[in-house]
């Protein structure tokens, strides 16, 4: 795990200097505090910040091939490196380190651009082929590790984080209001857009090749579902046997490390699966970490404790209070480098701080299981809405909606006949691939009403739901409805938010590497073949995963209904009805006007409502967090010439120790 940065001249120009590269890589020191490495050659410069996890002594990057004509820096892990190495050695390649990085250069020599198909891992790679004068950038299949780039002034700049790019004076810094609209609809920008006008994201599963001043981007992998359901004759027992073997192998590979590996424990199904597989099928000593809340609505401490007792693990629990979220939020946004509509990444930053304090650098975590195996409420909600749409006059079909969201204090299904009207939204779009997402996106888009006249004028065109079609495959309409929902979820919420703002960024903020066994591409490809009824059986989500884990996790966890991970939102920023100091400043008429994105009057009324504790629903809370986070981005990334920590003190680091009990 690490950070990468680099520059390549696309036409004749001043060669990238060590000084420029140092500026860029120092900005992501937190990603790799164990050392720096550089490679400068004529028109190209590569930089690396290292977090040593495999081959602690010999793994310094850049790493090269036998004649040093191929150089690589990379962020991430290649989990199947031992198997790849054995195979490459048989093919005659000679290795000079024991690192996973070195397989990349030899694979490239052996297979050219196809090298990436052999990798099982999470990675952002920058590889230089000196013979062909060619730069190759690659990003892992699910989008676990980030990679951003900017093309300007005859150069391509690239880096693991935006702050590396913005440390370079040549890079323009401006929020893209069209992209902000996307965040305020889909919860993420749609790649290649980032929140910033000049900055692009290399999308998950893509390669970028830079040769003779030209850049070419191509996709090498994607989530794909069958248009006809195959394997219909397989029994549940056949499926569970295959899945169990696959999950054990995925966990076994992802435990590879020369430093100890821990695991997050949420109290839900997914982390229970991982921890029990570690316990039952590997020799790795189990060390677990969890987060809890004062508010009962969010807290899962009871289930966490059940599991800790069941597994007998050494465990650290972090209690996250509202005030901790308010205090740490600016630091979170410094790392997310994007607007977000929930505070939920914040407790995870505090948790990664506790992992670091316990002396760990790596944790296994359960993200991806919901997308892969069909766990989300939105999938069940869509199932009911599709069922209802076949008989729109039915009185009882929509009643099933009331079984959704039992964990919400202020549930959208609690208001009787209004519930039906709400979920009727977008019923006319039954044939659209994004049918399932319309209620969520419609609620999120309520944030757009806070835009200023000036901002509205600057927006090319208001974002509509159909904008998503730009990132959908042509054949999506041939897939089963659940598979369409899964694809969209994987390419918006998962890669754009859960793995980035709520994943890589808040873990790397404390130099912690997250690993995601459910996102092993073999697991994704396996689950793509699973018939929909084995994902959601009736209204029972992740049915096949639960069947597979029978006898391996406590029945209380296996049978509990899913509770999504959430944290207190707008309440975290007020004490006795008064906003925290920085919140008051960023929402002041003067500061809002200076930034220009929002209408100060409407923002003031929202603030007033939140201050009184009257903002109960998702829409107001998303608006508050969305506006606050975008103003923090403006403050730290646009106003300041360098992206420094927002506060003098680092709230994250201090509040963690205070919160551990």
């Amino acid at each position: 795990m690490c950070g990468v940065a680099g520059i390549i001249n696309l036409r004749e120009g001043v060669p990238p200097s060590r000084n420029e590269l140092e500026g860029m890589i120092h900005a992501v020191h937190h990603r790799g505090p164990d050392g720096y490495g550089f490679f400068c050659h004529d028109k190209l410069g590569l930089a690396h910040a290292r977090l040593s996890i495999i081959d602690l002594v010999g793994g310094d990057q850049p790493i090269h091939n036998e004649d040093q004509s191929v150089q690589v820096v990379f962020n991430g892990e290649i989990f199947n490196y031992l198997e790849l190495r054995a195979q490459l050695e048989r093919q005659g390649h000679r290795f000079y380190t024991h690192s996973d990085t070195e397989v990349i250069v030899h694979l490239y020599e052996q297979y050219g651009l196809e090298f990436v198909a052999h990798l099982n891992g999470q990675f952002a790679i920058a590889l230089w082929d000196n013979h062909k004068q060619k730069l190759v950038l690659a990003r892992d299949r699910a989008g676990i590790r980030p990679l951003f780039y900017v093309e300007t002034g005859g150069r391509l700049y690239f880096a693991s984080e935006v702050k590396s790019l913005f440390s370079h004076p040549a890079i323009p810094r401006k929020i893209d209001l069209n992209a902000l609209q996307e965040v305020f609809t889909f919860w993420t920008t749609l790649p290649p857009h980032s929140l910033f006008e000049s900055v692009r994201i290399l999308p998950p599963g893509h390669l970028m090749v830079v040769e003779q001043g030209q850049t070419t981007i191509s996709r090498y992998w994607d989530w794909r579902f069958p248009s006809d359901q195959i394997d219909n004759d397989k029994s549940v027992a056949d499926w569970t046997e295959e899945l169990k073997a696959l999950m054990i192998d995925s966990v076994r590979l992802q435990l590879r490390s020369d430093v100890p590996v821990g695991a997050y424990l949420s109290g839900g199904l997914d982390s229970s699966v991982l921890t029990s597989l570690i316990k039952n099928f590997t020799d790795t000593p189990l060390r677990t970490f969890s987060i809890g809340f004062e508010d009962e609505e969010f807290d899962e401490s009871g289930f966490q404790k059940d599991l800790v007792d069941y597994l007998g693990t050494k465990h650290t629990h972090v209690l996250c209070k509202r005030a901790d979220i308010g205090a740490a939020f600016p630091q979170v946004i410094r790392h997310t480098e994007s607007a977000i509509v929930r505070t939920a990444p914040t407790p995870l930053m505090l948790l990664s701080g506790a992992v670091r304090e316990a002396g760990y650098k790596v944790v296994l975590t359960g993200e991806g299981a919901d997308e892969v195996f069909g766990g989300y409420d939105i999938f069940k909600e869509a199932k009911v809405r599709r069922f209802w749409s076949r008989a729109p006059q039915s009185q009882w079909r929509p009643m099933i909606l009331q079984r959704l969201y039992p964990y919400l204090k202020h549930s959208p299904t609690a208001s009787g006949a209004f519930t039906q009207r709400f979920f009727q939204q977008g019923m006319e779009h039954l044939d659209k691939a994004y049918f399932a997402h319309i209620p969520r996106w419609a609620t999120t888009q309520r944030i757009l009403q806070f835009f200023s006249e000036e901002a509205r004028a600057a927006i090319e065109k208001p974002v509509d739901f159909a904008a998503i079609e730009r990132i959908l495959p042509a054949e999506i309409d041939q897939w089963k409805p659940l598979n369409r929902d899964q694809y969209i979820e994987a390419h918006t919420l998962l890669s754009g938010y859960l793995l980035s703002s709520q994943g890589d960024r808040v873990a790397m903020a404390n130099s912690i590497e997250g690993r995601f066994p459910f996102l092993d591409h073999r697991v994704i490809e396996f689950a793509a073949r699973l018939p929909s009824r084995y994902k959601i059986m009736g209204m029972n989500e992740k049915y096949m995963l639960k069947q597979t884990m029978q006898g391996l996790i406590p029945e209380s966890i296996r049978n509990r209904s899913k509770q999504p991970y959430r944290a207190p939102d707008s309440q975290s920023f007020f004490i006795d009805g008064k906003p925290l100091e920085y919140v008051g400043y960023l929402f002041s008429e003067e500061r809002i006007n200076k930034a220009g994105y929002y209408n100060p009057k409407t923002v003031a009324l929202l603030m007033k409502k939140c201050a009184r504790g009257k903002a109960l629903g998702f829409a107001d809370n998303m608006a508050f967090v969305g506006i606050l986070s975008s103003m923090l981005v403006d403050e730290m990334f646009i106003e300041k010439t360098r992206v420094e920590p927002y506060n003098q003190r680092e709230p994250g680091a201090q509040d963690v120790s205070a919160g551990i009990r």
Partner: protein
Amino acid sequence: MSSEAQIRNYILENYLFTDDQSALDSADSFLDKGILDSTGILEVIYFLEDEFKIKVEDTEMIPENLDSVNNIVSFIEKKRQ
């Protein structure tokens, strides 16, 4: 202040985030115009129960009673009878 004005101002301030009276017609459907989402209606019910000292029963949570300023005004009058 009349009940109508009180309800109008509440909706304007808390859901449309404005004091511009022209932004809302008393006959506008909250759902059709996207003024309220489904949790928004719960907040409105809390407001009515606090301000007008009434109790909204589950069976009364229907658009005919709550989906516009006019509907709410008639509903409150009916409840007070």
